[in-house]
């Protein structure tokens, strides 16, 4: 009788056990679980490729993203110019690579910084409660009630377009969501008995809420970080498309998309906006996959 696949698997496990390769394999549970999630791994691979390509852009492309070359205007994709050239003869592929640097920096940077602010405030206020919580809650509500676009308009008209203005606005409007998430988790966690036990030892508030409680509150926050990374990249693209985001001379994914405002380009020169649009979508999708994978793998009560 032929061995079933289950038997074969079992034989393999037994063999490995005899060779004692089990004990030498010491990968953390979280990493293992993450690696078992195929979509997340795929996301991570593409995410890494895009980031590496952006970082090593000068090595991958012989062109300067800013150099105007009027002899090769609006050329379709070819072996010289993979994604073609734009209206001033700049290589689109190079611009996508260099644009990725700024866009990813803005997206990830604002998401992580707003998460740091949100978590720091949310954990403490949520755990402590009382008037600290009330004040923090009201402040976050004030920030969240401002429409982003109006804040951007305000700041741009006062200080001019700049990358850091944009990030500052993203953080100001973004930390409220993270804060609420962290606070809500802490509110339910602080009634758990292990927290009471830690309190009965008289441990400091910081140790209790940042060391012992935060890891249990982290999984929804992790997902939110990835989601807001994606959102910030899209918002940056949107604002730059409207000419309100990063100054036009800096290549970002949004600024490259900006040319699609011209109906002529939109209709006739698809390579100027098509590839970059796809890159944005793929990147955002990958980040979301990673977020999902992280959530599943960091949840300690899920086994596997």
């Amino acid at each position, binding site marked *: 009788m032929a061995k079933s696949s289950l038997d074969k698997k079992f034989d393999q496990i037994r063999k490995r056990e005899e060779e004692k390769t089990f004990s030498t394999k010491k990968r953390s549970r979280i990493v293992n679980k993450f690696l078992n999630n195929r979509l997340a791994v795929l996301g991570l691979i593409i995410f890494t490729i895009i980031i590496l390509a952006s970082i090593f852009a000068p090595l991958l492309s012989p062109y300067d993203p800013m150099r105007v070359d009027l002899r090769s205007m609006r050329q379709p994709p070819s072996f010289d110019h993979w994604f073609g050239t734009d209206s001033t003869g700049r290589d689109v592929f190079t611009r996508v690579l260099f644009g990725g640097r700024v866009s990813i920096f803005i997206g990830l940077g604002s998401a992580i910084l707003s998460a740091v602010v949100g978590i720091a405030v949310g954990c403490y206020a949520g755990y402590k409660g009382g008037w600290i919580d009330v004040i923090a809650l009201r402040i976050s509500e004030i920030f969240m009630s401002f429409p982003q676009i109006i804040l951007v308009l305000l700041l741009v008209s006062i200080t001019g377009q700049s990358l850091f203005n944009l990030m500052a606005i993203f953080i100001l409007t973004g930390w409220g969501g993270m804060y609420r998430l962290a606070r809500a988790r802490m509110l339910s966690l602080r009634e758990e*008995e292990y927290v009471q036990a*830690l309190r*009965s*030892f008289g441990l400091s508030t910081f140790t209790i809420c940042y060391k012992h409680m935060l890891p249990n509150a982290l999984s929804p926050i992790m997902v939110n970080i990835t989601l807001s990374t994606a959102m910030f990249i899209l918002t940056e693209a949107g604002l730059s498309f409207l000419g309100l985001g990063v100054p036009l001379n800096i290549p970002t994914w949004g600024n490259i998309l900006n040319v699609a405002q011209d109906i002529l380009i939109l209709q006739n020169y698809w390579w100027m906006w098509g590839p970059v649009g796809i890159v944005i979508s793929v990147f955002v999708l990958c980040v979301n996959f990673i977020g999902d994978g992280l959530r599943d793998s960091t949840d300690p009560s899920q086994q596997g």
Partner: protein
Amino acid sequence: MKKEILKLRGVKVHFPVQAGVFNRVVGHVLAVDGVDLDIFRGEVLGLAGESGCGKTTLGKAILRLVEPTDGEVKYISQDDDETELTSLEKKDMDPFRKKLQIVFQDPHSSLNPSFTIFGSLQDPLKKFGIKSKEERRKIIGDLLEAVNMRREYMDRYPHEFSGGQRQRIGIVRALCLEPELIVCDEAVSALDVSIQAQVLKLLMQLKKEKNLTYLFITHDLSVTEYLCDRIAVMYLGRIVELCVSEDLYNNTLHPYSEALISAIPVADLDKQTKRIVLEGDVPSPVNPPKGCPFHPRCPKATDICKTEVPTLKKYSTNGNEHYASCHLIDLPEIT
């Protein structure tokens, strides 16, 4: 000679009830409403009562997990030094946190799911001055062995354990700083009966080895019967009866305790017990009834019960001190 370890005097815990737009305080939940209690060194004091009568709150108030609104909790050290705990600053409380510990009810929420056992137990040890990691591992390992678990378990995560095992880990946590008094807050109520017996046996064995004192909070009088030296029965935030445990079962004075005892299931088909069924629910602790708080449900209530609040008076049964608060006891009061 019995020596006290804790003296509670008029301990009250009131929670404000807020309502309306501006969170106006419209009343107070009188969770614990004036409890006087002495806990002696080396005894097991049971604290019984139905849900919502303030047992757990009282236990937490002792450890200041809930701040008492009023009253005194005095800790008496082995050298007879008295310290009033409720008025201490947070950081002055530390040396006493070491002496008083708690074991919780729910084994599923009492351990941090993100940390290994060692990870979640080591911080208290670190705080109380055990600097080297090897030493911390040794202490926790030894205690795990003391509760009949394997030393290696300290590197596992809580979800890998069963309920009974987790409860024993909870006991390890309470023991790790060598406390003198452990508040067992329904420590076995969430376990099934065979595991209950195992954990109770373990608790008694540890008590002998380490000279512990237990405040054993439970709603299950069948557990306290075998375990406790003395039992206090609580009703609506007050102690209604306090006596040596045999006396509670054989010479019950308070009608509420009588009803509780009649509710203990007896594994004997021939034995006919008279079941006293209490009507209704525990009255709201927001506005307790006038007079004796038990009178609306008491089968023996008379007119005096509706108007006058009975105080805890001292009687004597079988030569033991026996406190009860009821107007209808015909024993002579001892002053």
